């Protein structure tokens, strides 16, 4: 294991076409060094390489492979993985690839045909080049060299004279190719996942899928893929689009799109699925689909950086609560709107109704809350010192009353004069705390001779 620096995941004879660049994004969470050989897996020889030596402090090789295998199930079903996905580790990419391809545990046991992988580990050779190298390998085989071990036993000094300069450079690569530079891996610009129901052999008729249940099962898989890619990018979802593409016919509407805006960034598929189910269920009850679903697409439209936090092993519920809180806020804002679900933050303003603003923020961890509470208490003390107690409820539009109403109630405190904002028309109000005949305490103010009820204690 100590010499295993690279993990190669080799794909062969896949039934489904998958974009390996999308899958490779998810492996960023384990290593910053990822490379893709080929692109769309389906043929022989496409592979993903992961430089795992840096992750060994966090995961054992078995755990890492298990995790990667679990991620892969979102794209390739486990039963297909068993015969279409090959794994191997090696000291460099070429060795790992060759070990996976020929299912050998030691470099020396590899057949001499594995030299092709040492010639170009990160991309397949074109046909002409491959034929040229196969001729050279055939020559080696005729000389009795059938394995990489035997190849390495050839005298290096006479290599150029007998087999040419190219073979010497391959010889060096077989000896140690750890210095071969890795190609730069570019993650795709947008995170977009499509699921073709036809490819998945799923009946596209929603009714045949027992309503939304079957559909949401497929959507769940798509969300998992999207979230795995987001996790690899170290980002969270803020806004995404879900599109149901329908079969094309004269009555079909073509597609139906749903936009989801999330108030706080999300990373749990369960919560996102709840939101999706609720919205689609409601919509489908009102407007059934006019055709059969062919494809389901999810595209992430806005993201937020993912806060790097250590997993709290001692208080796992705190993390769950935070996720549940984000999910609740998202569901509420999705239905009611951003301005109707909020937290409040005090601001410096003499006008009472403008002394706070609406905001949305995460709960944060307990330390965060602790410091926030102490900040709150500081603010509380400041405000309590500077202002008389305000009523717990105020009217959005103050209620105008007769100007002699004040004489019919009991005035409890000395009047408080509030004025300011001279730069914006300005205001001057004289506030009174009064008690009505029914025992209710009311906050009233007089301005320019008129009397208004502003709030209730």
């Amino acid at each position: 294991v100590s010499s295993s620096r690279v993990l190669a995941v080799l794909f062969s004879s896949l039934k489904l076409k998958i974009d390996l660049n999308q899958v490779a994004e998810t492996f960023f969470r384990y290593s910053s060094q990822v490379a893709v050989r080929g692109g769309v897996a389906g043929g022989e020889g496409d592979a993903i390489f992961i430089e795992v030596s840096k992750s060994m402090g966090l995961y054992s090789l078995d755990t890492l492979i298990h995790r990667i295998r679990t991620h892969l199930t979102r794209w390739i079903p486990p039963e297909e993985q068993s015969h279409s996905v090959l794994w191997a580790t090696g000291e460099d990419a070429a060795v790992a690839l060759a070990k996976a391809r020929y299912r050998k545990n030691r470099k020396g046991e590899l057949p001499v045909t594995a030299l092709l992988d040492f010639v170009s580990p990160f991309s397949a050779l074109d046909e002409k080049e491959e034929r040229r190298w196969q001729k050279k390998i055939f020559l080696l085989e005729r000389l009795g060299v059938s394995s990489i071990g035997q190849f390495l036993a050839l005298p290096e000094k006479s290599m150029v004279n007998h087999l040419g300069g190219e073979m010497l450079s391959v010889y060096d690569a077989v000896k140690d190719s750890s210095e071969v530079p890795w190609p730069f891996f570019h993650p795709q610009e947008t995170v977009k996942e499509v699921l073709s129901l036809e490819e998945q052999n799923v009946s596209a008729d929603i009714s045949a899928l027992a309503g939304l249940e079957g559909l949401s099962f497929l959507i769940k898989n798509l969300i998992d893929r999207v979230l795995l890619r987001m996790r690899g990018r170290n980002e969270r979802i803020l806004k995404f689009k879900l599109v149901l593409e329908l079969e094309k016919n004269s009555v079909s509407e073509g597609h139906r799109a749903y936009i989801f805006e999330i108030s706080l960034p999300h990373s749990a598929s369960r919560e996102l699925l709840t939101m999706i189910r609720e919205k689609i269920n409601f919509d489908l009850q009102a407007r059934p689909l006019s055709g059969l679903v062919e494809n389901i697409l999810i595209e992430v439209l806005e993201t937020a950086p993912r806060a790097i936090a250590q997993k709290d092993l001692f208080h796992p519920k705190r993390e769950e609560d935070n996720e549940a809180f984000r999910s609740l806020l998202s569901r509420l804002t999705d239905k009611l709107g951003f301005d109707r679900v909020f937290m409040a933050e005090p601001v410096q303003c003499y006008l009472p109704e403008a002394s706070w603003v609406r905001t949305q923020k995460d709960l944060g961890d307990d330390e965060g809350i602790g410091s926030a509470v102490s900040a709150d208490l500081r603010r509380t003390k400041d405000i309590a010192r500077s202002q008389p107690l305000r009523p717990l409820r105020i009217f959005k539009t103050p209620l105008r009353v007769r100007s002699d109403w004040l004489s019919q109630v009991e005035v409890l405190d000395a009047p408080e004069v509030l004025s300011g904002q001279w730069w914006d028309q300005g205001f001057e109000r004289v506030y009174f705390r009064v008690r009505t005949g029914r025992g209710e305490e009311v906050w009233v103010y007089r301005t320019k001779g008129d009397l208004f009820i502003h709030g209730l204690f």
Partner: protein
Amino acid sequence: MLAALKLFQIPSPSSASQSARLAHLRAQVGALDGSLSPEVHTAPDLPVGLPKGAVVELLGPARYEYAAKLLAEKQTLSVWVQKDLSFFPTALLQRGVSLERSVFVEGGQNINWVLKQVLQAQIFPFVIGEDLQLPEKDLRRLQLLAERSGATLLHLCSDYRPSWVPMLSVHLEHLMHPDGSVGFRSQILRKRGAL
């Protein structure tokens, strides 16, 4: 149980002694059945406390101040749900309620749905609703959700409307103590089980 059956044969339950007996028997039945002995939050000026996982009605002129004082003491997560917002966050902050732990929701016509969502989230120990004009059936559903989540739904009501849903209905008034401090005078209008 026999005693309880006999209760139904009482000809005039309106008389004071019979009402007292009825209340006593209810308390006894509740005490025998462990499920009817709810966990409670300690609450200011309310010796019985506030049951967890229940709907509690707060009535009277001091109901808002009482809710604010309770939340200021608990320093816990809370949701303030109204049809249209009238709660004044600055005033809550003055009374010591943490705005970092308070969420405000203007539910409009969807107030019932909002409360269901909030209770289903199971993360808020206190949910505060104001004058929920909901049918008994919906209130009963909210009560079940509160039970499941362990949350206390404080229903601030302007009028007392007899209902089977609240576990506790309390009328609250301001009380000036001889030392000048302000407290609350609480009068229990109705309680259920062995509270």
